[in-house]
C-alpha cells in the first residue's frame, strides 16, 4: 500500500492549484450564459501545460501518465469548477485508444492532445441507463462506408466537439456495439445544444449519416465503451472530491465567521458535528475515488468495475450529503445564485447523474462487477 504522491504527481497538483488560483469559480460563472461555455484560450493553455495528454500514451503526443495523474488534475480543476471539456474528451479519446488503430489515434486523439480539437462520446439514448446500454442507433454497411441512423441524447460537451465517438449496433448482429467517429459537420448530423443543470452544455444528436470505412473503430466496441465510461466515472469521482473539499472548507470558514445570537455559529455543537460528518464523508469518498483511479489504470476489468462502482455510489451518498449540508449551513445565502456554494451543489447533481448513476452502479456492484 502506498498512497503517497510521486514527485511528478506533486508537480501536477502544484501546477493545477496554481491554475485554480488564477481561474476562480467566477470564470465558470461568467461562462454559464456563453454559447460555448468554456474558454478556447484556457484550452490552449491546458494543452501547453501538457494536461490534455497527461493520461495518454506518448504515441499520440501524450506524456504517458496514469489515470491517477489525471484524477489529481481533475480534482484540482473541480475545486474551481473549470468547465473545459477535458474529462469528456479523455473519455472519448480512451474509447478510440481501446478500439481504434494507429491511423485513427493519430487522426483523432493527437489533435486533442495539441489543443486543436475536443472530443465527445455519444452513447446515451434513453434517459435511463441502469440496465440498458443497448444501442438502438444502427449502422448498416453499404457503398461508400457505413450508414448510421439514430439519436443520441445528453452528449456531454457535444455542442462543441470536433469529433463524436458514436455507438451503434451493427445491423443483423444482435447485442453488438460498434464505435464510429462522426463529425458534427457531416451531412445528416444534427447537433442540438442544450443547457445542463451545472451551467454547462450537452447536445442531442440526430444521425442519418454515411461515414467512410476508416471512421469505424475496428476493435470490440463493448469493452471499449465500458472502459471509457468507467474512466469517466472515476474522473467524476475525483472531481467530486475536489468539490466536497471545497465546499467543506467554505462551510467551515462560514461557521468560523458568521455570528448569530452574539457568537460564531461554529460554536454550536450541533453545527460542529454536522461539519465533522461532512469531513468524514469527504474522506471516505476520497479513499474510494483514489482506489477507482488506480483500478482504471490496472488490467483487471472486474476489479476495475467493482472499484469504480463502489466509488460512484459513495460519491452519490457523500457528495449529496456534503453539498446539501454546505447549503444548509450557509442558510439563506446558500440559496442565492450569487453564492458559489450552489454552483458546486449543482455540479455534484450532474456528476451523480452521468457515467452511471448510483442505482446502476449499486446493481453492477451487486452482480460482482
Amino acid at each position, binding site marked *: 500500500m502506498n498512497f503517497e504522491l510521486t514527485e511528478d504527481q506533486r508537480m501536477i497538483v502544484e501546477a493545477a492549484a496554481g491554475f485554480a488560483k488564477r481561474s476562480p469559480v467566477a470564470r465558470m460563472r461568467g461562462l454559464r450564459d456563453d454559447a460555448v461555455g468554456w474558454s478556447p484560450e484556457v484550452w490552449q493553455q491546458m494543452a501547453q501545460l501538457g494536461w490534455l495528454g497527461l493520461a495518454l500514451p506518448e504515441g499520440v503526443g501524450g506524456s504517458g501518465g496514469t489515470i491517477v495523474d489525471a484524477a489529481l488534475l481533475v480534482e484540482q480543476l473541480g475545486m474551481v469548477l473549470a468547465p473545459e471539456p477535458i474529462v469528456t474528451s479523455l473519455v472519448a479519446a480512451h474509447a478510440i485508444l481501446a478500439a481504434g488503430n494507429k491511423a485513427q489515434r493519430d487522426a483523432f486523439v493527437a489533435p486533442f492532445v495539441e489543443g486543436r480539437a475536443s472530443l465527445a462520446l455519444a452513447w*446515451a439514448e*434513453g*434517459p*435511463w*441507463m*441502469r440496465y440498458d446500454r443497448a444501442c438502438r442507433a444502427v449502422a448498416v454497411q453499404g457503398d461508400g462506408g457505413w450508414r448510421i441512423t439514430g439519436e443520441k*441524447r*445528453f452528449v456531454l460537451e457535444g455542442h462543441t466537439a470536433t469529433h463524436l465517438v458514436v455507438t451503434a449496433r451493427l445491423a443483423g448482429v444482435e447485442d453488438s456495439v460498434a464505435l464510429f467517429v462522426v463529425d458534427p459537420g457531416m451531412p445528416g448530423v444534427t447537433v*442540438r445544444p*442544450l*443547457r*445542463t*443543470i*451545472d*451551467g454547462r452544455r*450537452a447536445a*442531442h444528436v440526430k444521425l442519418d449519416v454515411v461515414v467512410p470505412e476508416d471512421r469505424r473503430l475496428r476493435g470490440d466496441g463493448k469493452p471499449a465503451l465500458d472502459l471509457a465510461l468507467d474512466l469517466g466515472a472515476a474522473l467524476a469521482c475525483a472531481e467530486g472530491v475536489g468539490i466536497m473539499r471545497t465546499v467543506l472548507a467554505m462551510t467551515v470558514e462560514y461557521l468560523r465567521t458568521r*455570528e*448569530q*445570537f*452574539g457568537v460564531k*455559529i461554529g460554536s454550536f455543537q*450541533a*453545527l460542529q458535528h454536522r461539519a465533522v460528518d461532512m469531513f468524514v464523508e469527504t474522506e471516505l469518498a476520497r479513499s474510494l475515488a483514489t482506489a477507482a483511479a488506480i483500478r482504471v489504470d490496472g488490467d483487471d476489468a472486474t476489479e476495475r468495475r467493482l472499484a469504480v462502482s463502489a466509488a460512484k455510489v459513495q460519491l452519490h451518498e457523500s457528495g*449529496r450529503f456534503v453539498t*446539501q449540508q454546505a*447549503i*444548509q449551513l450557509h*442558510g*439563506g445565502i*446558500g*440559496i*442565492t*445564485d*450569487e453564492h458559489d456554494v*450552489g454552483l458546486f*451543489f*449543482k455540479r455534484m*447533481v*450532474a456528476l451523480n*447523474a*452521468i457515467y452511471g*448513476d*448510483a*442505482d446502476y452502479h449499486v*446493481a453492477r456492484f451487486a452482480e460482482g462487477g
Partner: protein
Amino acid sequence: MDLSFSPEHLAFRDEVRAFILTEMPPHLRAKAEVDAHFEHHEVMEWHRILHRRGWVAPLWPAELGGPGLDATSRFILSEELELANAPALSPFGLAMVGPAIIQYGDDAQKQRFLPKILSGEEVWCQGYSEPNAGSDLASLRTRAERDGDHFIVNGQKTWTTYAQHADWIFCLVRTDPNAKKQSGITFLLIDLKTPGVTVRPFLTIGGTPAFSETFFDNVRVPVANVVGAIDAGWTVAKALLGHERTLIAAVGAIGRTIRTCKQIADAHDLDQDPVVLAKIARLEIRHRALQMTNYRALAGAQLGHAPGPESSILKIRGAELVQQAYELAMELMGHDALAWFPEEGIVPELEAGIASAFCYLRATTIYGGSNEIQKNIIAKHLLGLS
C-alpha cells in the same frame, strides 16, 4: 380512535374536488398537470377564483371574509388544492399580515387593508430577515425613528419573497435602539411605492427570482401603520409564526410530488422495477407518517386542544420530505435530470421544471425558521433541555 373523516368532512372534500374540477381554467390546469411554474398573474387569477367562492382566506373569521371552516375542513381544503397542484397563493397577505391585523390591528387598519388582501388588489411581502439577522431574527438593525406622525425608516431587508410583485411589505423594525433585543421592535406596514424604497430581485439556485433585497433610505411611514403597540412587534411576529404549522408541512404538495415520481417512473418504463417501486414506497410511507401526524394535530385542534408535540415536528419533517420527493424525481429522471430550463422536446414536459424546483426547494429546511432552529425549539420547550 377513528381514522376516517366524518361524513360531513367527506362531503366537503367532494365539494372541494368538484370545485377544482369545474373552476380551474384550462390554461392553469394544463400547467398544473405538468407541475409547471405559475407566473404571478396566474397565481392572482386563481386567487380571484378562490375569492369568489369565499375560500381564499380559510384562516379568517367569517365576519371578516373568511369561510368559517373548522380546522379539519381547512386542512382538507389546503390538501386538496395542493394535490390538484393548484397555484399556491402568496401566504404573506392571507396567512400572515391578514391574521396579524385581525388579531392586533385597529378598526381603521382592518377596514383599510383586509378587503384588498382578500380581493387580491394588494399583494404583500414580508420584511423580517436581514443580512445579519437570520436565525437570530431579534438582532435586526433596520431602524425607524419617530418624526411627528411618521417614522423614518432606514435599513435593509432580505429574502423578501416576491417583493417585485408586492404592493406592501410588513416589517419588523427597531424603534428603541437601547432596548434589549426582542423589546424595542415594532411591526410596521410600509407601502412599497413610498419614496426611498428600492427592491432588487435576485436569482436563487433554482434559476428563478423568488427573492428580493429591499432597501429603505429615509422612508417616511405614518405611525398609524404600526400594528399592535410600538416596541411590541415581537409579540405580533411570534403570534404569526405560530399560525397553523400544519399548513407549512405541505402534506398535499409532497403527495403530489410522489404522484409525479410515479408518472416519471411510468414514462421511463420503470413502473415494474422493484428497486424503483421500493424507493417510491419508502417515500410514501414517510409521507403517510407525516400525514397521520398532521391528522393527529388536526383532531386535537378540532377538539380545542393546544397544539401538542406532534405539531412541532411537522415543519421539520415536511420540509425534509419535500426535498426527498424532488430528489427521487431527479433520480428517476436519469439523464433527463441534467436538462436546465430545457426547450420544448428535450425532455418530457412533466420533467421540464423539476430540476429548477429541486434546487430551489433546498430552501424549505432554511426558511420559516431553519430546521436547526425548529430543533432548538423542540429541545427547549418539549424535551425541557436547555
